[in-house]
């Protein structure tokens, strides 16, 4: 989690984003991320992001739920405490379907949400750098990381050329830290860090 230098371009509409992303990738600039107020279908593909495997995780949690609940009930009613309920069989599979189903859904959903929060690093008191406050309102914010090979003014004019209405340069920490949004808090004190590359 170092402090890096970024060029930030804001777009007023999602329309030019696809073309812009394509051109950024073609020209070899390091595309950090695009922040949008709502999900834009196909932008992830355009950015070259791979599909998420979150649903696979959900499936695995579901399998865990099914097998653990079924085996638990089987153990309880056939081995640990076999109850004679009106002479009915101890291994009463049909009667266990509802609970097995509910537990499957519960494990899958809870597991997926926790995995989602872990992957996206979302939690109470987690703070991150926000490149533009209106990225959650009406601005589509494209962030390009400056490297030793790229030039600040060159990238800025490149973004303007793509249709960005507002372009600026920011030193920002990537990743997250513990903090509150009513206070200015950063992980590193600006100016002290040596990782900023001009």
């Amino acid at each position, binding site marked *: 989690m170092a402090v890096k230098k970024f060029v930030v371009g804001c777009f007023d509409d999602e329309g030019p984003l696809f073309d812009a992303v394509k051109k950024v990738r073609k020209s070899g600039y390091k595309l950090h991320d695009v922040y949008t107020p709502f999900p834009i279908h196909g932008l992830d593909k355009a950015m070259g992001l791979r599909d998420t495997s979150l649903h696979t995780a959900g499936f695995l949690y579901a399998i865990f739920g099914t097998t653990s609940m079924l085996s638990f009930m089987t153990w309880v009613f056939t081995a640990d*405490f076999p109850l004679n309920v009106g002479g009915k069989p101890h291994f009463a599979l049909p009667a266990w379907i509802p609970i097995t189903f509910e537990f499957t859904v519960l494990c899958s959903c809870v597991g997926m949400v926790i995995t989602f929060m872990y992957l996206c690093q979302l939690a109470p008191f987690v703070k991150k750098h926000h490149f533009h406050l209106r990225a959650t309102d009406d601005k589509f914010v494209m962030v390009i990381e400056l490297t030793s090979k790229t030039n600040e003014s060159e990238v800025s004019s490149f973004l303007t050329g793509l249709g960005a209405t507002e372009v600026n340069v920011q030193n920002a920490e990537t990743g997250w830290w513990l903090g509150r949004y009513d206070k200015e808090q950063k992980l590193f004190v600006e100016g002290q860090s040596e990782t900023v590359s001009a």
Partner: protein
Amino acid sequence: MALLRYESQVRPPLVENEKTYHQVTEDIVRPIEANPTRLWWIGFLISVGLLLFGVYSIYREVTYGVGQWNLNKTIGWGWDITNFVWWVGIGHAGTLISAILLLFRQGWRTGVNRAAEAMTIFAVMCAGQFPIWHMGRVWMAFFVLPYANTRGPLWVNFNSPLLWDVFAISTYFTVSLLFWYSGLIPDLATVRDRARLKWRKFMYGFLSFGWTGSTKHWQRHESLSLVLAGMSTPLVLSVHTVVSFDFATSVIPGWHTTIFPPYFVAGAIFSGFAMVQTLLLISRKVLNLEEYITIEHIEVMNKVIVLTGSIVGVAYLTELFISWYGQNPNEGWAFAQNRLNLFSPYGWSYWLMMGCNVISPQIFWFRKLRRNLVVTFFMSVIVNIGMWFERFVIIVTSIYRDYLPSSWSTYYTPTIWEIGFYLGTFGLFFTCYFLFSKFFPVIAVAEIKHILKKSGESYKKNMYHIEKESAEQLYNDVHHDHHH
């Protein structure tokens, strides 16, 4: 791209007037940032008052026992379980709107899903109170959980529908809460980033979990929503099915029927949509959201109400037919004497149910009435009264006269503490709803922006050109294929 954004001219817009993304944010977030209105305070304080009365009613019940209620030897389930089933049923519409309509790609759900999901959570919270406090010795409530104990361990009975209910309701509550909150996170971040006051920055910063709107995060968020919707769909159907098993697996005439699961699910959606109408008709007016919760939305929901009301009607008639056709004297008696006979002790409740649930919603076959807000509001209340009586009829008229005439009970009327408990859950429900409408965006902001260019009024005007272009394109494509 054009085709992706295309929606037929025939479909009325889901967002009225010329709106930009920023205006959408403004319109929906403004009520959160403004001071609460006088109306809000009045409603909120009445709700808190009801809640306190409910708390006192429960206090009496816990202190003096279930005898504080007028339940008796044959009527072991009265208002409490009636209210339980009623509240659970109301919750179902929220999940239907948020999950099933998401899978069916129904654009209109975006205007109403957030409030409906909130309603689900609050309704399930209210529902859960009844079985819990009905236990009497509520401090033993944890006995329903399967945990290793020193009594054997004596496990819970996994074959019992009452235990299935414990799992169904708790899973339903948890999943609904997660679904609702994961959808809220991006919108709470919108509120956070607009906040100027310190406490607001702190609170929404805390609640929005550091959401940035990164494309990768949105991709995962979409995947999560889709899978949660996919899981919630069978879940919501299972929940009321399991609730109906509480009755259907017994041997009580009037309860022991295989039609219960689908009939309960249809009834649940019916009453839930009515409650959504009640809440949204008030919310859209008070919060000035008429451009987002439009007459279109209300009309579509009225169509759902007339459909599910009719399904419920068919179920009632089927039940009557089977009770005659089945030739079981006890069942025949339960239907013919305890219910159908208007002059039997509870006959009035059966006909009240029939009138409210089956006959009155039929007015929604008329477009003019479906689009009339006053009619809709009264109907939504009538439907919920009717659906309350449905559960009352099922529970009380089936058990007040059992197999032994010597133990036929006296007429059952609730005590003030039973009524107080019910009113208390109204207090809980509306206190939560008032707080929700004050502090959370009642409409899913990001989702409205997502459909704005497809279903917004100003954008729909451009559709004509796309329509023409795509028709030509289609013609050319077909023509092209033909020749090669």
